[in-house]
Structure formats: structure tokens, C-alpha cells
């Protein structure tokens, strides 16, 4: 194991996780601001998500009459598992000790645990909206899983490891190579990420139009700090996929040691990568309209096919 008794390393990893969580709202507001600018609207201030959290945490919690304990515990588990997932991913430093706690497949499993409770919370109150949101969320997540797994497989075949630190280290060690497998894996991961985080064209995070929403339908009954936790989890999940995309496929700049200068460079590089990804997302969301619900499986089929071709081209074209 990577010196898992090294206290400083663990502390650094914890700090990195805290930074990750703190930056998640920033990434969301960045996307939102670009979108607003593109759509000729006045953008909200940078501090808006933090202010929202302060307001929600201060507010009183309301519960539906039919709500069970699952409804009250779910926000904590959803948020907790998402933070746990964030802690596994190398953010500005590659060799984090948390990465040996769980590999890429466990990462997917951890997110699935959060989603399970999110969907249960949607079902708990017993309204049609909640059930509808849960049903759609679980369906699309199930269809996204194979594509995600094939992406993981392509990466794991390349680096013969599913450990995120090792994969990133492998990509860094390689001379710069144009790999079709990585190219298609990247595209597939972006498509899967769009589905998993509920962005346009799959789900619209800004809408509350009942018949089209997925994620918002599940958390419709939440108030106060519960809502804040759910929102934080959603923002963190978006950032997780962005960081995964940035660090797995374009890891250059990330620090391999706990050296202050290297970490600074790594932070700047990551911020730049996230800024570009966020801008791309905003442009994409502005250009594309939300698609019909039953077009989403086709969308995911594209993701799966891309991932599959990526894996096959690894076997066929990049073989020995």
C-alpha cells in the first residue's frame, strides 16, 4: 500500500477533499454564469450558491405527513456518499492514500449507493412526482452503467489497474500518444456524465416543469438543510464527473508529490481545465434542446457504442 500510515498524507488527502467540496459550488456557478452570458441574461454573483446554502441551512425543516425515517436519513447518505466518492478521486495530487480505499469500480458503486437512497427518498412521500423521478433516474442510471464500465475497462486494460491514482500515473508516464481508445473513452465518459448528472439534453436542472424533470422531481418535497444537502450532492456530482474527465484523460499538470509549488501548478492547471470543461458544458447546454425522454436510451446507446469501439480499438489497433 502507498504508505498508508503516513499521517501527513492522510491529512493532505482530507484537505484536498475539503477543497473539492468547497469548489463544487464554484464550478456550478461558473457554468451558470457562462450560460447566462450566452443567453443575454444577467449572471448571478459568484457567491450565489454559498448564499443559497446559508439560507437553506438557516431555514426550518418541513416534513411531509407520510414521510418515514428514510426520507430524513437519505440526504445525509446521499451527500455523504458523494463526498466519499470525491475523496477517492485525485484532485490536485495524484498519490492520495484514499485512492487505495476504493478503485474506479467502487467509485461507481459508491455513487450508486447514493442514488439508491435518492430514489428511495423520491418514493417515500408517496406522490406521483417522486415516483416518476425515481423511476426515470434509476432507469437511465441502469442504462448508463454498462457504458461507464466499458470506459473503466478500457482505461484499466491500458494501465492494467483500476486504481485511479495508478491510471493517472500511467497516463502521465506515457509519452504523449494519440490513442483512439482514450479518445472514445473520453467522449463516452462525457455522455455518461451528462446523463448521470442530469444536464441538458437529458434533464434540465433549472426546470420545475413536472412532466420533464428527473432529478428535481425526486427532491421536490425537501426543505431546509435537507434540501441544502441534496443540492450540495448534486453540485458535487457534477464536479466529480468534470474532475474525472479532466484528470483521467488530460492529467497533465497534476502534482505527483506534496510539494507546495507543484501543488500550486496543479491547482492552476486543474482550475483551467475545469473552466474550459464548464464553458463547453454551458455552450452545449445553450445550443442543444432537451430531448424527448425516450430518446435518452438512444443517447446512452451512442455512449455505449463509443465506449465499445474505444475498447475494441484498444484491442485491435493498439495491441502488441
Amino acid at each position, binding site marked *: 500500500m502507498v504508505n498508508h500510515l503516513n499521517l501527513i498524507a492522510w491529512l493532505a488527502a482530507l484537505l484536498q477533499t475539503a477543497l473539492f467540496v468547497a469548489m463544487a459550488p464554484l464550478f456550478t456557478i461558473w457554468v451558470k454564469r457562462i450560460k447566462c452570458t450566452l443567453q443575454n441574461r444577467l449572471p448571478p454573483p459568484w457567491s450565489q450558491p454559498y448564499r443559497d446554502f446559508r439560507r437553506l441551512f438557516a431555514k426550518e425543516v418541513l416534513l411531509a405527513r407520510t414521510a418515514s425515517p428514510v426520507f430524513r436519513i437519505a440526504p445525509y447518505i446521499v451527500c455523504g456518499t458523494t463526498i466519499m466518492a470525491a475523496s477517492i478521486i485525485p484532485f490536485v495530487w495524484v498519490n492520495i492514500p484514499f485512492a487505495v480505499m476504493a478503485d474506479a469500480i467502487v467509485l461507481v458503486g459508491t455513487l450508486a449507493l447514493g442514488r439508491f437512497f435518492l430514489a428511495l427518498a423520491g418514493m417515500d412521500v408517496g406522490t406521483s412526482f417522486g415516483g416518476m423521478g425515481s423511476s426515470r433516474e434509476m432507469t437511465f442510471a441502469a442504462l448508463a452503467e454498462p457504458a461507464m464500465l466499458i470506459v473503466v475497462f478500457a482505461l484499466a486494460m491500458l494501465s492494467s489497474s483500476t486504481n485511479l491514482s495508478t491510471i493517472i500515473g500511467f497516463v502521465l508516464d506515457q509519452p504523449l500518444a494519440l490513442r*483512439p481508445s482514450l479518445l472514445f473513452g473520453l467522449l463516452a465518459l462525457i455522455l455518461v456524465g451528462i446523463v448521470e448528472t442530469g444536464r441538458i439534453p437529458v434533464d434540465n436542472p433549472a426546470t420545475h416543469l413536472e412532466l420533464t424533470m428527473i432529478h428535481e422531481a425526486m427532491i421536490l418535497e425537501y426543505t431546509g438543510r435537507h434540501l441544502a444537502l441534496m443540492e450540495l450532492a448534486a453540485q458535487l456530482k457534477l464536479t466529480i464527473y468534470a474532475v474525472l474527465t479532466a484528470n483521467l484523460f488530460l492529467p497533465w499538470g497534476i502534482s505527483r508529490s506534496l510539494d507546495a509549488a507543484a501543488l500550486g501548478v496543479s491547482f492552476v492547471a486543474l482550475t483551467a481545465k475545469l473552466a474550459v470543461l464548464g464553458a463547453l458544458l454551458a455552450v452545449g447546454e445553450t445550443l442543444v434542446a432537451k430531448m424527448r425522454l425516450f430518446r435518452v436510451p438512444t443517447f446512452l446507446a451512442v455512449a455505449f457504442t463509443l465506449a465499445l469501439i474505444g475498447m475494441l480499438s484498444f484491442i485491435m489497433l493498439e495491441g502488441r
Partner: protein
Amino acid sequence: MTAYADLPLIEQAIRTFAALILVTSFALLAQSRVVAAIQVFAWQGFLLAALTALVAWNSGLTHLYISAALTLALKALFIPWLLIRQARRLGILRDLDAVIRPGLTLMAAGALVIFCYNVVVPVREFTQVVTRDAIAVSLALVMIALLMLITRRKAITQVVAFMSLENGLFFAAVTATQGMPMVVELGIAFDVLIAAVIFGVFFFHIRDSIESLDVDQLSRLREIND
């Protein structure tokens, strides 16, 4: 597998383009709208031209540049333009040629790729060309085009499939044997051109005689009519 990373960048680029062409083939198979299918076909032609140019650069064979230019002119520009013009004149540009069971068809295509790879593995043992892996891709391109031929109903999409099949063969010629002799290549290029024009004429004849471009209605060859 560090071997791949040690290859020169140009060969990595060739392989990446091969994979991209494979993707266009899948896209072609899944595309149900006539105009979109023609556009994807144009992209395939464009990528093929780029790949040919890269191979030409890598091998230093000048006649491949001419092939690349021909491919670009014919397959990426002229034939798609011709097809789109005809489709517009026939009023079928926005028509749907629905894919039957798109999920299954795509899965079948994936299986075909693996099958082709399996077929080619013994062959590539003794082929010493650097781009030998591409033979598997070219065979897969041909097979997917054939799959598209049998899953489509409209004459125009079938022509696109046929042209894409020819792309697969051309791909094999370029990557496996560094291109055919110039005369042969020119001949084939003009054959394809003429074929495209003749197909265009046929579309009108088919429509005039059966008032549809649905090839399922062309079943007169059957011996037993029920």
C-alpha cells in the same frame, strides 16, 4: 503496452483515423434519416481522404496523394452533393428509413467487428506492413456496410451503404498494400463516380415504375407468389 506509445505519431494518427472511420460506419448504420446518412457518409469520405494523405506522407508514395485528393473530391464532396441533390429532387431528403431494432443492429455490428478481428488474426501473423491491424478494421467496415444493406429499405440509403462498402475496400487497399497501382485506382474512382450517376438515374426510374423508393416492393424475382 508501451509498444504503442513508442510508435511514431504519424502511425498513431493513422490508427486513430482508422478508428474514427469505424465510428462513422457505426453512425451510418444507426442513422435513420436520409440526409443525415448522406452527411455521415461524406464525413467518412473526408476521414478516408485524410487517412490516405497520412499514409502517403508516412510511406512517401506520391501517387497516394492523388488518391487522397480523388477521394476527397469524389467521396467527401461530389457524391454526397449528388445524392443530396437527387434526394431533394425526389422529395425524400427528410424521409425516415427507420432502422429495425437499432439496439440489436448496433450489437450485431459490434459482434461483427469482433468476428472480423478473429478472422484476420491468423492473416496478420505474416503480414509485415505496419498498418496491418487496419485490415481487421477494413473487413469490419465492409461487413457493417453489408449489414446496412440488408437492414435498409430505401434505395437511396442502400446506395449509401454500397458506397460505404466501397470505402471499406479502398481502406484495405490503402492501408494493407500502400494503395493499388495508379491506373487501377483511377479506374475504380471513375467507376464509383459513374455508379453514383447511374444510381441517380435509376432512382427516378424506380420511382416512375413503382411510385416508391422502397426496395421491399421489388420482389418480382420471387418464384412463388402468394
